[in-house]
């Protein structure tokens, strides 16, 4: 075959570049791991608190990204699961349950609640589903206030726990950092494998086209319920982590505004992206702090301006920054960037695709 030599050469070259990029990936993970381990040892308690907060909200945003970013379903209720997890953790710790059992319940109970909500709601689409998730924090806050035997009412509950064991020689802030970062790393690794695998593909196909999903034997309903359940589970786990570092929970933990801010952070970081999720958490925690350093009286304004700036400059989120920079660099080097092969059928495809995928007529 005439094509054989070139295709072999191409295969060789891709495998070589594949191996360098894999090594670069391993080096990146290694550096990240070292940085995560070393950081708390050399940072002040304040910095450790901020880093721990990033880990907490990264897990909450991770859940949100699975249901919204990867599966395309709107959820405005993530704060309710964060709060539920925090309350379960508080209840467990105050009643002397072992930490691992409490963590397990913080994952399982919100997951079951999320699943029940999704079983009822996932048959609905778009706005109706959004409205149901929206109701969760709105109902949750007064419930948390009313059941004050369980929740501590409006004044919330202080839970002093997770002190560093003497033998570790660590300060409390360092110990708590390691606990939450470990949980976050495990959650991220599991989520990464999930979205890269068979289930992740079913999320993508449901997000893009439910009719096609059905024709592939993927049930959109079951897929949505699964995504929502996983999101709730991660929300609950982040609640456990929240209690670990804040040592306090109150109805304020699950207010609707937190849900909205989490959604904004997810979009800012990068929808349907694991790295974007982490960047979103960095944004969620650090931008208010930085805004406060610029002008405490104008934090909302500054945060809003940053949000708009990122959305305009990087519509695909912070995670697209390197790609964007690379494109800028190549376009300055070559005034006419090599356009992707545009053929006449491509042009027609672009024009006809949206209507063709949605309404098939006979």
């Amino acid at each position, binding site marked *: 075959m005439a094509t054989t030599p070139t295709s072999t050469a191409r295969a060789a070259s891709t495998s070589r570049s594949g191996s360098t990029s894999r090594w670069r990936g391993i080096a990146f993970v290694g550096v990240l791991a070292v940085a995560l381990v070393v950081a708390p040892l*050399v940072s*002040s308690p304040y910095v450790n608190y901020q880093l721990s907060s990033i880990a907490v909200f990264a897990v909450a945003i991770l859940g949100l990204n699975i249901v919204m970013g990867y599966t395309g379903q709107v959820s405005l209720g993530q704060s309710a699961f964060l709060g539920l997890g925090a309350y379960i953790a508080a209840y467990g710790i105050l009643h002397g349950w072992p930490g691992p059992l409490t963590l397990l319940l913080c994952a399982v109970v919100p997951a079951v609640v999320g699943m029940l909500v999704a079983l009822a709601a996932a048959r609905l689409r778009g706005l109706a589903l959004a409205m149901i998730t929206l109701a969760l924090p*709105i109902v949750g806050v007064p419930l948390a206030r009313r059941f004050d035997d369980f929740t501590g009412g409006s*004044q919330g509950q202080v839970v*002093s726990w997770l002190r560093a064991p003497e033998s570790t020689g660590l300060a409390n802030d360092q110990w708590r950092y390691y606990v939450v970062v470990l949980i976050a790393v495990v959650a991220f690794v599991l989520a990464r494998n999930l979205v890269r695998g068979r289930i992740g593909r079913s999320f993508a196909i449901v997000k893009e086209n439910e009719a096609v999903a059905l024709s592939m034997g993927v049930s959109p309903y079951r897929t949505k319920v699964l995504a929502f359940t996983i999101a709730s589970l991660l929300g609950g786990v982040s609640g456990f982590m929240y209690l670990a570092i804040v040592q306090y929970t*109150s*109805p304020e933990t699950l207010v609707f505004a937190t849900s909205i801010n989490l959604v904004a952070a997810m979009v800012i970081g990068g929808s349907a992206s694991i790295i974007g999720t982490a960047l979103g958490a960095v944004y969620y925690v650090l931008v208010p702090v930085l805004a*406060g350093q610029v002008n405490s009286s104008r934090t*909302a304004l500054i945060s809003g301006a940053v949000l708009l700036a990122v959305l305009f400059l990087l519509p695909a989120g912070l995670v697209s920054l390197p790609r964007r920079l690379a494109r800028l660099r190549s376009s300055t080097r070559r005034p006419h960037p090599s356009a992707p092969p545009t053929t006449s059928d491509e042009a027609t495809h672009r024009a006809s695709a949206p209507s063709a995928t949605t309404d098939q007529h006979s």
Partner: protein
Amino acid sequence: MTKTRNAARASGVIATVSIAALLVSGCTRDSSSGGPGADDSASSPGITDDSISIGISSPLSGPTAGPGSCTIAGLDSYIEAKNAAGGFEFGDGKTRQVDFTYLDDVYDPAKAVSNFRQLINDGIFAYVGALGTPTNAAVMPIAEEEEVPQVLLTTGARTFSSDQDAHPWTTGFVPTYATEGRAFGELLAKEGKPVTVATLAQNDDFGQSYLDGFNEAIEGSQVEVVADATYEPTDTTLDAQVTELASSKADVLLSAVSVTPLQVGVLTKAQSLGWLPRIFLPSNTSTPGTILQPGGAAAYPAVYTPSFSKNPNSPAFANDEDVKAYNDAFQKYGSKIATTYTPHCAWSYAEGAVLDEAFQGMEEPTRESFMDSMKSISGFQAPLLLDGITVDTTTKDDAAISTVQLVQYDGQAGFKPVAG
């Protein structure tokens, strides 16, 4: 072959970066919790011979931004005016300038903790005057652990003052909700004749502490609660509750509603039903411009509310020296932080004076000495407090201000002392 070279390269990168990280940030961290300024073992962090730094975190954005900004603006006005006049005199004979740092927490406990940690990291001496129950509750254990004063808090919850032996680093400033409720009960009990009361309260511990204070005061009197109802802060209307209460035809309505539009709704609904009881309103929902006038409160025989500070905008106090000083200082400093007036502006200004008083009694430049002095103020007439209201920090179970005066709506834009 390639594989090993790549592996070597990767581990080389890891090693270099981790060493760099260690070098850049220094191999060990400061083990004391004080942060910068902690080098002098005799004095606490945040205080030098000529300066002291204090900090606060309150909501400066979001739904509670109005009161939150005022808890900073009034305090800032007092501090900056005093700084400009030479500084604060301390019990150790030194005069110091006060550095005041304020941060926004949007009423979010996690952000309040973050801000508090940041302030400690920046080396503040004390945390003063913060607004909000959940935010301060989240900060309290850390203040205890780090032994940082968390004083003169602007929250009506009892937690911060009711057990000062258990929480030695924390004190509240404004009267608690129970104090307000108690004042209502006392007024009715004192009348010495049978009175029927209907109560409407938020269905949580705030509403409950209001009612607790009220019920304590009416015990054994001829005052009788004949109807009660509760609501959720998320309710959009209280018409059903008001209708139910109106059927009791009680003489008095205690409307412990803390949501502005709902309180307006209560006032309009009751009179539309032809029910015109005397009405008691909490201090945080009795502003004439936003609640009483829109609610048509002039129709009721009497509308009472607790008060402990002068309204600097009221013509009645136009010639008051303290009010003039406040207005000058606020114009110059505080108006940059808070654009609209809430009573919290006046309160936090008075709080500045209490802080001043505590500094004057502070004999050592330490947090312990500050707390001792802070808890030994009594009979102090702070500026802008109503006559007869004094600051007393010596009680172990109540806020710095533990009395209120009831005032009565004058039917227009202000209040007058309670008749009789």
